[in-house]
């Protein structure tokens, strides 16, 4: 049993941590068959998550997949690993609870645009500013799909939905700008139609020590067909990567680039290294524990009680 949140938990000797295992196969990682509509962009995001797990030789027990509510948030059911399907909009604080108490795990959070930017908007900003280590992949389809076509916070002006039959009137959120302004330390954009690029972004996000955010365009073929055609060369669009000259540590340049009209750019917009909340809390723990070295918890508590006599 591990007594502190600093330590990586001890695993029973029956399964030594040095154990060599092969990367998991897709068959071993896949769980339930996805309930998404045929043609949904989310299928490719899931396939690439499997690929990431396989390529990076992650073990079942070390994979933690968390989601909120929405079509894309069904994600954890389809992954054969520890997972949690939490409530609408609150996946980030839930994942933060895991991240901050388990330094041995890298938490992946999947969700949609409503979950991230509407009901969960507050958590998005605060998880980003605190730089809590995890990867957040928002599968952005510009529409509420699970509830069958209502306006989402990323729906462009004029989009005709069941709640805006005359076309959306509210200005949409720009997820990248939001993330940069909130203080996210890794901000990237990709699209489900470019699998290699998705995998590339996932790997970079996973390797980032901090809050890594990926906006992944993921088309809803049922309620917003063709939304992202302009970004898909196979549909006559253009896939513009972030220019090689872009300085990913330049916040203003990243913000400006994020404001480019659709289809905009794809790739890493912003990436800086700042101490994570995980590291800062660990530092506080280390400092305080150094003052009580060698004492059992009850002895530390006894000191407090002695002062209350």
């Amino acid at each position, binding site marked *: *049993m*591990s*007594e*502190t*949140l600093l*330590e990586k*938990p*001890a*695993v*029973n000797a*029956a*399964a030594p941590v040095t154990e060599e295992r092969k990367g998991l196969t897709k068959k*071993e990682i896949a*769980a339930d068959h996805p309930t998404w509509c045929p043609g949904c962009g989310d299928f490719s995001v899931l396939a690439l998550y499997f690929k990431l797990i396989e390529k990076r030789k992650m073990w*079942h*027990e*070390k*994979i933690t997949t968390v989601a909120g509510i929405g079509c894309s948030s069904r994600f954890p*059911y389809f992954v054969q*690993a*520890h*997972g*949690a*399907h*939490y*409530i609408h909009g*609150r996946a*980030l*604080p*839930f994942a*933060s*609870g*895991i*991240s*901050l*108490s*388990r330094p*041995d*795990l890298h938490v992946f959070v999947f969700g949609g645009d409503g979950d991230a930017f509407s009901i969960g908007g*507050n*958590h998005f*900003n*605060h998880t980003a500013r605190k730089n809590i280590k995890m990867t957040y992949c928002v599968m952005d389809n510009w529409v509420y799909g699970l509830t069958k076509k209502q306006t989402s916070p990323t729906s462009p002006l004029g989009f005709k939905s069941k709640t805006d039959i005359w076309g959306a009137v509210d200005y949409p959120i720009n997820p990248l700008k939001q993330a940069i302004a909130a203080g996210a330390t890794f901000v990237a954009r990709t699209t489900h139609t470019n699998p290699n690029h998705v995998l590339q972004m996932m790997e970079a996000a996973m390797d980032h020590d901090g809050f890594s955010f990926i906006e992944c365009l993921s088309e809803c073929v049922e309620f917003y067909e063709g939304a992202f055609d302009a970004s898909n060369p196979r549909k006559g669009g253009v896939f513009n990567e972030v220019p090689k000259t872009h300085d990913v540590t330049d916040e203003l340049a990243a913000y400006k680039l994020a404001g480019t009209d659709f289809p905009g750019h794809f790739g890493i917009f912003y990436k800086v290294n700042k101490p994570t909340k995980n590291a800062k*809390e660990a530092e*506080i*723990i280390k400092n305080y*524990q150094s*003052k*009580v070295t060698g004492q059992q*918890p*009850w*002895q*530390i*508590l*006894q000191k*407090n*009680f002695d*002062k*209350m*006599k």
Partner: protein
Amino acid sequence: MSNATTGVPSSGGAQKVSAINEVVIRIAGNSQDGIQAIGGFLARLAGRSEQEVMTFMTIPATISGGASIFQVRMGSGEVLSSGDEADVLLAFYQHSYDAHIASLKKGGIVLYDSDHVVPNEELKQKYHHLGIPISGLTVEAIGGTAKDKGKNIFALGLIAKMFDLNMPKLEKLIGERFTGKDPSILNNALAAFHAGHANPLGNVLETFKFVDAQKKDGQQVVMNGNEAIGYGLIAAGVRFGAGYPITPWTDIMELLRRELPKYGGCFIQTEDEIAAISMAIGGSYAGRVAVTGSSGPGISLKTEALGWAIMAEMPLVIIDVQRGGPSTGMPTNIEQSDLNIAVNGGHGDAPRVVIAPANVEDCFYMAIEAVNIARKYSVPVILLTDQGIATRIEAFVEPNLEKVCQNIGPDFTPIADHKPYDLSAANGISHHVPPGTKINSGKYPIVTGLEHDELGHPTGSPKLHMQMTAKRRKKLQALAATLPLPKIYGPSEGNVLLVGWGSTEGPIKEAVDRARAAGDSVSSIHIKHINPLPNGLENIFSGFNHVLVVEMNDEGLYGFGQFGAILRARYCDPKIQGINKTDGLTWKVKEILERTKTNLSAGLSKI
């Protein structure tokens, strides 16, 4: 003030010294005057002198300033409540005098700062008046730079003189309080204290001395309910939690934030109440029972997430320090009106455990109990306290921390197979297996708020929904079977049984004592396990003609308070009636007695 022996006038016709068992002192001033510090010193002195102590504090909701009181009752015998009436009122200002003089018992002593208070001539007949220029004498004692600071310590000196309190112990307490600060601060404090103690106490003809206290079982510790909860959680092994500031819960999160790093843990201040419970649930999911807490408004915000924890069968401890509601309500007043939300709050059939400590000592041990129930039954547990216990300082026998402290660190030992919602589990009690645990079958659990099958995968099956709903309920029924019945205070048969829960235990017991002394047949029980209730309460109720549920909440649309309504629904017994109030103040013993009489004389009008 109860006299143990008749006062013996000392020779020379000067002040006489009377032996007393206990005293109630009310200190009234402004919130920045350090009156809580005086109260704290007295409470800790009582604790160190093996005396019983009970305090009552009101703090204004204003940011700084505003009227504030601290009432301390110290005694050599058992002290049950903070006292209906004060023996001594210490009034720093005119408004303190005007507002609190009526809280003095007839013949009581009002000690006032004559630099600020002009006493009412008519009241001089009713109470002993003792005017001392506290502000002026404090400045005289420690110099003009201190302004108003130090007069609380001067007043403490006056009280020490009046009650012949143990000076070396008080000096030590003052020393501890100001330790590590600029030595001139401690010197000033001691100078003010000695100046107060040296005061001849004007026209007061009597001083007092406590009779020797009954020997306690061991060393006592003195703390308030919020501190007891914080330390109880640490002793229970809790190492992670999250919260958002709200009165009167905030002290607990401040304590955990400050203390947990020593134990290798941390407590996170989140952006809002929903994030707080979500992060705590995430911590529990990660393998170790985590804690969150709040007061009424925050509990309302947390209920959706609470429902998830119930559905997903995740252990969790939620502290609800109740205050006056609904909405922002009365943030610094006492009320027991969150019982309904604690027991039933949220949507769907969502059984959770609710337990309610009755005193500060309970806060410590029931925090540990909450953690252990959460772990054993994989269920959220709400620890329901209130503003009264939160701020009340009491002494209790020091726990044996070496025995009490537990390690509940997660266990990641690989297992052969795991079903997070195993329907064949005895009494429906399955357990969570945290991420990081290898499951050799290769089938991994999903925890979820959707209705699910045994592995946690979504289902729309009517049969599974019925089975899982029953599973979540059966766990609590199994818990109920293990819960002890409350002890009956007084005979087990009689005319009236008073039923209480939460912070009202002291005044209810004292009401029983007084009623019995007057020849009335009254007993009481105090129920600490609110949901589920222990089995067999009906056997206790059957011994009485009337069962009166004493609560600090409204009598409701149908005439019964929140707990009263639950007991009536549970036992279908028309003799269960309620005594309720919503004035935001703790029960006075005489209120309970009067209301009991009124209720009985009105007959069973509400059936």
